[in-house]
Each structure stands twice: as C-alpha cells, then as structure tokens.
C-alpha cells in the first residue's frame, strides 16, 4: 500500500479522535475568545504609552493569542498520541505492514489541521472585534499558513516529550515548558517597554520572532525586516523539531 494512502487513512482516524471529543475542539477557541475579552478591553490604555506600535490593542493581541493557542495545542496532540501508545493501539499500528513514517505523518497532519482551524476562528473573532489586518488578504493567508506550520512544530515538541517519557503526567505538564516559550515574549508589551532579564529572555526565545513576524503582518503590514527573522525562526524550529521527532520516532519504533 502506498505511503500516501496509509497516511490519509491514519490522518482521518486521528481527526475523528479529535472531533469525537468536543471539548478538545471547543476549549482552545473559547480560551482564545476569553483572552480577547479579559485582556483586550481592560488593557486598551497601554496603546497610549509612547512607543506602542499600534492604536488598537486587540490588533496587538491577535498575534499573541494565535501563538499561545497554537503552542498549547502541541501538548494536546502529544497527549492524544500518548493515549494510543499506552492503550496499546499504537502497537497495533506498528504490527501492520505499513511505513512508520505514515504513522508520524498522520499525527502531524492532524496537528496542522487543528492549528489551521484555530487560527481561522481567531482571525474571524479579531475581525468581528474590528481588527483590520494591515497585510491585507494575502497577509491573513500568510498568518494562517505560518500558524499551521508553527502548530506542527509545537506538536513535534510535545511528541518528543511524550515519546521520551511515555508518561501522561509529564506530557500533560508540557505546558510548563510551553509557558515560558509563550510568555517570555512581547506578547503583552513591545520590547522597547521591557527591561532586565525579561528582555534578555525575550531576545533568545525563538517563539518571540515568530510572534513579532505574525504581529507585524497584522498591525503594520509588509515590513520585511521584522517579518523575515520570524520566517527564519519558524523554518529553523520546524527543521530541528521535525528532525528530532522523526529520529526519536524511528528509534522508538524500530
């Protein structure tokens, strides 16, 4: 059987598992909506600070909410995979005369699908809240594609932890790792308004560059000097995470 056919069937299966748990579908979107609600309105005043790059705080937040929703989604994808490993279903897949790579692809494609659907909903919510995307329709498309790719990279990180520890407790605690990745950024304040160790941490956090890239497209448009570092950071994360996950997956299933 061709690897594409295997991947397709495993993708559909994993997609069904995701949809079969409505809370897993709804709660990230609900969280995203809540973030607009609890942060957007009360913190609106910070746009008055000198040096703040936008006069619409919701627009500023959109990038952060996308990144945060998708980063945390990586842990969910890893948990779903770990559930299969622990239940023994994963062994059933390993017993089948199929390529190991299609098993991994089936997982990662669902990670991409989840991220895609989430970012589309967030963009819709933002639009309803009056956010204008400075990058235009093409900008929206780029944000969606980049967020999807970022979702796959996050899922890889979660999978590495799941495969390495095989522990639901540790995998569920992946957010402990994701937390600093998502928060040690300019999620709430531009870098000019940050100081001390926080600023240093933000500078070395690759997620920050992805966030800035996405946000630039949203609030400023095509300013390549801030978009490109984000693109490189995203590509680098995908390459490193993808390679590590594939290597570990091969080793664990040999």
């Amino acid at each position, binding site marked *: *059987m061709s690897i594409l056919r295997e991947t397709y069937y495993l993708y559909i*299966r994993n997609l069904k*598992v995701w949809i079969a748990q409505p809370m897993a579908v709804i709660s990230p979107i609900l969280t995203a909506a809540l973030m607009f609600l609890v942060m957007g309105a009360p913190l609106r005043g910070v746009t008055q600070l000198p040096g703040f790059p936008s006069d619409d705080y919701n627009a500023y937040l959109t990038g952060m909410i996308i990144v945060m929703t998708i980063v945390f989604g990586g842990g969910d994808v890893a948990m779903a995979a770990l559930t*299969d490993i622990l239940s023994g279903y994963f*062994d059933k897949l390993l017993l*089948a005369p199929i390529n190991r790579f299609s098993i991994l692809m089936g997982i990662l494609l669902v990670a991409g699908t989840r991220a895609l659907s989430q970012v589309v909903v967030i963009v819709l919510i933002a639009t309803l809240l009056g956010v204008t995307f400075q990058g235009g329709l093409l900008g929206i498309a780029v944000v969606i594609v980049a967020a999807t790719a970022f979702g796959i990279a996050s899922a890889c990180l979660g999978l590495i932890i799941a495969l390495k*520890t095989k522990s639901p*407790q540790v995998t569920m605690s992946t957010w402990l790792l994701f937390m600093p990745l998502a928060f040690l950024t300019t999620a709430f304040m531009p870098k000019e308004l940050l100081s001390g160790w926080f600023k240093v941490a933000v500078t070395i956090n690759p997620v920050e560059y992805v966030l800035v890239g996405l946000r630039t497209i949203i609030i400023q448009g095509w300013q390549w000097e801030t978009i490109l570092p984000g693109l490189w950071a995203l590509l680098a994360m995908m390459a490193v995470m993808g390679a590590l996950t594939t290597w570990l997956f091969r080793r664990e299933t040999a």
Partner: protein
Amino acid sequence: MTDEPIVDVQKLVKVYPGGTRAVSDINFTVARGEFFGFLGPNGAGKTTTMKILATLLRKSSGRAIVAGYDVDRDPMSIRRSIGFAMQEVGLDDLAPGLDFLVLQGVLYGLSRREARSRAAELLELVGLTSVAGRKVGTYSGGMRRRVDLVAALMHNPPLLFLDEPTTGLDPQSRLALWEYLELLNGRGVTIFLTTQMMEEADRLCQRIAIIDEGQIVAEGSPRSLKEEVGGDVIRTTFGSDGREEEGAYSERAEPLVKERDYVTAVSSAGNSLTITVRDGSAAVPDLLRLLNENSIPVANLSMASPTLDDVFLKYTGRTIRAEEATGDETEQAMRPWLGLKRR
C-alpha cells in the same frame, strides 16, 4: 514447503537494557496448522518471545523464522502473514467497532469494500453484529477481547499469535472464545498462544512448551506431559456396616486390586485404598465390578487425573498459582514513570 515449521526459533536470547535476561537461549518450532501453547507464570518470558516473533521487539541474539521470513531481514513480510492479539488489548475506544475493523483491514492492504464485508463477516462470527455501530469504548471486557481477536484476523493470516487471550474474562466468555479458537484452528489457522491457565493449555493445545524464567523446561502434548507425571489416582472408601472390623474390607480388597495389570501402586489407610492406575476411566468400571463380586461395599470412590499443574510442579518445583504475580513487561516498563521501582 509445507513440512517446514511456520515458526522456527533457535537459541533465542533477549536481554533488556538494564540486564534483565527475559529469554534465555530457547529453541522450539511450531508446525503449520498446529495449536501450540506457551505455558508459564508471569515474567517467564512468554510475552517477550511473542513480541520478538511479531517484530515488535528486537532480539538480542539467536535466530527466528516466522512464516518463512527472518525477523531481522524481512519484518514487513512477517507483519503481512501474522495476526497478533496482544495481552493489553489495544483498541480505538472512540471509534465504532465496525470502523475500527475496517481501518485495520485497510492498513493490511484491503480495499474499503473488502474490509467492510470482511469486518461484517467476522463480527457475525463472534456475535458482535448488533453492536457494530457502537463505540468500542462502551464494550464489555469479553466483547473487547472478541473485537480485538477479529481485528487480528481481518487480513486472514495463516498464523495467529495470542498473548493470554482469556485473562480477565468470566468463565462464560472464556468458553465462547475457546470455541472460536478451536473453530479457527479447524479451518487451518496455526495458533500460538501463551497462557498461565493449565486448563486452557490442556483444552486447546496440541502441544505445549512449559517456560519458566526464560527457559523451556518441558515440551510435548498435554497428554504426554501428564503421563510423564504418572497415571490417575483413584481413592475408595469402604462402607462400615458394623458387621466387619474397621479396615477389614481394605485388607480384603488390597490383594485383589493389586492383581489387576493396570494398577501400578496401591496403599491402604484405615477404611480406604489409594490406587494409582495407568488409565483411570477404563479402570473404574472394572474395579467397581471386582469389589462388587467380592461383596466389598464401596461407600465412596473418586478419581483425580494429574493436571498440568502437576507437570509444572514436577519440572520447576513450584506451582504456577503460588508464583507471586509480578506483572507483565509493559507494567514493568511503566513502573519507573509511575514513581515505582522495577520488581
């Protein structure tokens, strides 16, 4: 070709990282069409051996040929030729039974249509047609075992591995599963199962290997293994009607019984005799007639066959039930993550 064994294992060794020697230099073969069993307590190496043969685990050394293919060189061909129902039933709880089976079939190269009709046929065979549309997570333990078994049969494999297929089942479900397995074997499927249950090995297997601490300690048909232990044991108690003294009947009966050629040993104690015979079921009617002809009243007679328990006891010096359960390999592997020490 058909004379070649379907499983051929030579000097198989598995040492886990950390030094546990789970399988220690074992040799055995399984013939095509045979119903073969591995009998042994927890931690004996049964599951490890089976996982190596099913290509889920790498061996440390030795040689293993399954369905004509080498486990190292051609695992993909082995995967196509075998079905494996594992001890920890790995099901897709969120999928309806039918969908679960159809995907299973598709992954083994069937078209969707073929997979659907095959799944329907197999669900019928194990009496699950009425719940085919229900999510597997809602199935009872017995139903889960059955759907897991048929999942291993979707691609019609000539060789079926079953790791403790009836552990945790109630007697009724167990009996039903045994009947399916006999049916399958009757249709020509070679079955290799592991069990801790003497009764199961005795009922199903044409040949068994007793495995203990990673080594095969005895091998043969259940009957021949039991015969090695000795024949049947008949215990009789005589009536005490007050006309004769205590033990008088035993004294009269003993020499008469001893003369019978099927009797291998007799011992008397008070009002009863313990008689060891070669074939109990043939001996009982004859003994009763003999005692009756000599007016010796029999108050009670019972016969016990040696069981595979006795066989296990003979070869290992322990009974299988007395073994403290140590959990299977999966649990062992999980323990560090649960914050527990390996046992």
